[in-house]
């Protein structure tokens, strides 16, 4: 499968015959996929279809049960620190004890042992990053006091702190309102255009990123499909993936999926977290 916007270069992520299973249960299998520099790949699918496992596999935290996965030409485990990772919001604990700038700083040198050296240069870099994601105004505010949208900006700053070649976002729009969704996706899109950073974007909803997506990886209980949104998000293709009649309608540039099993009734990814959806899902 070739990317639509014609990005060149060696793939930054490459999967061949990849499968992942927990015991007897196969989550996905036979997955062949190359993600190229600057490409925007959206990973879609219902809960339980393996989106989170896919993220964990890319980070080298979940070994494949078959096939191969290389990230930047290396085994995923060795490449994990070259990936800019934006986790789900719920992942942050003890928020009040950390300022926005500290979170970004972790992205630069948080993994190193021993006392901090060369603090001046690092501090300037942190200021630059905060400025670039529009978070400079609340650099010194504890994370616990930031809104969800502000926190995600800081998160993206943290992920970009090391100039990663891959940006891996796990549901970064969860519980954000429409304005903040636009701001966050705008930052990500700008980055891949200016730096050729490949984006792997796991999401429930395709619509906020529909205009940027080059290809979609749709993971479903009945299999998976990779391709441009126009090919994958069709009634025919999704009906085949789900094994039942699914209707995909385009309304004013938005994709509306009706009839996908478990989709409309699916609970938010994290119980207890409000999922602000406008009722449109893909």
């Amino acid at each position, binding site marked *: 499968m070739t990317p639509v916007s014609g990005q060149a270069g060696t793939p930054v992520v490459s999967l061949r015959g990849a499968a992942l299973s927990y015991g007897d249960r196969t989550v996905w299998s036979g997955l062949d996929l190359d993600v190229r520099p600057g490409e925007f790949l959206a990973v879609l699918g219902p809960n339980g279809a393996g989106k989170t496992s896919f993220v964990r596999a890319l*980070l080298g*935290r979940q070994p494949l049960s078959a096939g191969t996965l290389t990230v930047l030409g290396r085994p995923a485990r060795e490449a*994990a*620190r070259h*990936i800019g*990772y934006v*986790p*789900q919001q719920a*992942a*942050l*604990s*003890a*928020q*009040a*004890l*950390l*300022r926005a700038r*500290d*979170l970004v700083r*972790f*992205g630069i*040198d*948080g*993994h*190193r*042992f*021993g*006392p*901090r050296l060369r603090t001046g240069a690092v501090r300037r870099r942190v200021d630059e990053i905060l400025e670039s994601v529009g978070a*400079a*105004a*609340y650099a*010194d*505010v*504890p994370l616990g*006091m930031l809104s969800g949208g502000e926190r995600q900006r800081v998160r993206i700053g*943290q*992920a970009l702190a090391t100039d990663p070649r891959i940006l891996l976002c796990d549901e970064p729009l969860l519980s954000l309102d429409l304005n903040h969704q636009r701001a966050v996706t705008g930052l990500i899109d700008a980055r891949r255009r200016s730096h050729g950073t490949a984006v792997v974007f796991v999401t429930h909803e395709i619509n906020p990123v529909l205009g940027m997506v080059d290809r979609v990886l749709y993971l479903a209980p009945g299999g998976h499909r990779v391709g441009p949104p126009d090919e994958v998000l069709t009634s025919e293709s999704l009906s085949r993936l789900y094994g039942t009649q699914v209707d995909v309608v385009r309304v004013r540039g938005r994709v509306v999926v009706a009839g996908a099993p478990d989709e409309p009734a699916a609970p938010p990814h994290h119980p207890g977290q409000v999922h602000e959806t406008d009722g449109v899902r893909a």
Partner: protein
Amino acid sequence: MTLADGVWQQIFDFTDYGELLALVRNSLIAGVALGLVGGLAGVFVLMRDLPFAVHGISELSFAGASAALLLGANIVAGSIAGSLLAAGAIGVLGSRARDRNSVIGIIMPFGLGLGVLFLALYKGRAANKFGLLTGQIVAVDTPQMSWLLGTSVLVLIALAVMWRPLTFASTDPDVAQARGVPVRALSFAFMLVLGLAVALSVQVVGALLVLTLVVTPAAAAARVTASPVLLPVLSVLFAVASIEGGILLALGSSIPISPYVTTISFGIYAVCRVAGKYRTRRWGTRRTAVRAA
């Protein structure tokens, strides 16, 4: 009125204060070391949500100390052994928060029971028994002192080495793991460090009140700052102020040291809480305010 005066005299009586002061020189030095250890460890106890673990470890530390007392062994060593055993068990069995709390709930009464058993068998001075639970000040003799200081130095070095990745792993475990921080190993290592810190604190405030040195100062500091530099500095200052203040006040009275330490510590927390309100208000209006340089 005379009754009240009598009670007051028990709590404060500063005649012969100068001579008494010489007796607690060791304790005052140990107090600084404990304040450093407790204040710094407390920062991570707060970040990692471990106050209950601290309490559980201190009960087993008490059991270890009372076993040492019964056997005539070094009490600090016994207390450290008990602490490390508990901390190790909690670290291995309870890596997730939910498991951890029940593991602690199971270990804690067992440790306390063992401690009571050893004390019941012990035929020595009753003050020694009571001191393990509620703290003592003049008990720090020279051999104990070297144990206390040696262990403190060990804890401080360990914390200095792992401070950064431990902060990362404690506040943002998901990304920390993705960035190659050994999250699980650090978690276990910190439990052991915490075990040592708790064992040290038991020597001064007693097993029942360790939280006042290992949690309260850090919690107070967290109310007024989120700076990664200021937070541990304030936490240590508060812990040292509580211990040293407690020792100096307890010196002039016949009651144990712990009520003084806990009261000072709590007082600092109360002040910080009120001060923190203003801080919150400042950030609440940050969007309209001009950004400070």
